């Protein structure tokens, strides 16, 4: 099919689909008048039952923990897929000759970028840790803080050299951290099963609302998810970096 015919048929079909969509969407209730029953129930009950102030994280890690477990497994599987695809492709190519500490082919970064990077590493690390640990009190949580922590480690690459980064995060450590995070999350679910015959039941004593120790298993789930996402981001970046910086002679 020629590109022109493809374009025209695409527009025609999308117009039909669009008419259907608009008709469906106009049948929704007015914007701003929400009529859900499950959400109202959760709002009424969550802060007193679970002693957390961030109701969204209570829904994510307690009431709907099943969905979050599947989301963790999706993350895990996609990282595994990327590793398999890129390592298999790397295995097919002839082995390049580059020494372990070789940073040739990697242009020097300017001084401004390096200074800014060095300053920002500490700040970013602290911010990421704060967001992970306080996920059940204020907006934030495991996923957001995990990606920020991964970005902090990648700033080391930006501010320094590839050599330093290789000493700093061998791939085995990253894989271990990600696996520990994912297994810890599943382990919390099993703990609920053992403690009270309902999987993912919140079985640790919930403290007083507003303090760091509150919410039972919710802050622990935050930490597990933070570990898993931190490891995942670093594995993804290092797989692609490894690919991009191998030099052929």
């Amino acid at each position, binding site marked *: 099919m020629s590109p022109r015919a493809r374009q025209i048929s695409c527009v025609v079909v999308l117009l039909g689909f669009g008419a259907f969509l608009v008709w469906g969407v106009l049948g929704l209730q007015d914007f701003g008048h929400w009529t859900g029953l499950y959400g109202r129930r959760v709002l009424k009950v969550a802060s007193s039952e679970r002693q957390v102030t961030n109701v969204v994280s209570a829904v994510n890690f307690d009431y709907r923990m099943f969905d979050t477990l599947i989301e963790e497994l999706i993350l895990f599987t996609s990282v595994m897929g990327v590793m398999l695809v890129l390592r298999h492709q790397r295995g097919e190519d002839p082995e390049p000759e580059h020494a372990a500490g070789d940073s040739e082919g990697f242009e020097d970064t300017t001084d401004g970028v390096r200074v800014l990077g060095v300053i920002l590493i500490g700040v970013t690390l602290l911010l990421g840790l704060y967001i992970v640990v306080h996920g059940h009190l204020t907006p934030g949580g495991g996923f957001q803080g995990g*990606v920020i922590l991964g*970005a902090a480690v990648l700033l080391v690459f930006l501010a320094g050299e590839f050599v330093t980064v290789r000493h700093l995060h061998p791939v085995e450590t990253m894989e271990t951290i990600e696996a520990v995070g994912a297994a810890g999350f599943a382990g919390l679910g099993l703990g609920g099963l053992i403690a009270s015959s309902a999987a993912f039941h919140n079985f640790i004593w919930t403290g007083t609302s507003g303090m760091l120790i509150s919410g039972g298993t919710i802050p622990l789930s935050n930490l597990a998810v933070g570990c898993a996402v931190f490891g995942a981001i670093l594995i993804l970046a290092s797989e692609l970096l490894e690919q991009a910086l191998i030099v052929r002679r």
Partner: protein
Amino acid sequence: MNALQFVTIVMVCLASTVVVFTRDPLRQLMVAGIAGLLLAILFFSYQAPDVALSQIVVSTVAVPIMVLLALVHIKRDEGEHEEEDES
């Protein structure tokens, strides 16, 4: 619905249309980052700060890192293909 939400919705639609019609991947990546930030402002005005944090982090940290590294890798592959063709 207040004025901030209305203006941000219009800007998100405009930015996403520009994202689709930019063909060069590197430029499209920058525009997609801007569209992601506008979407985060919209989420914030919908009283959803958790979702806005997530959107900022994914659309300006995770996706650009991965797309840029993929683009570097592809450029290197193209460079090697040319060397092989010449030799």
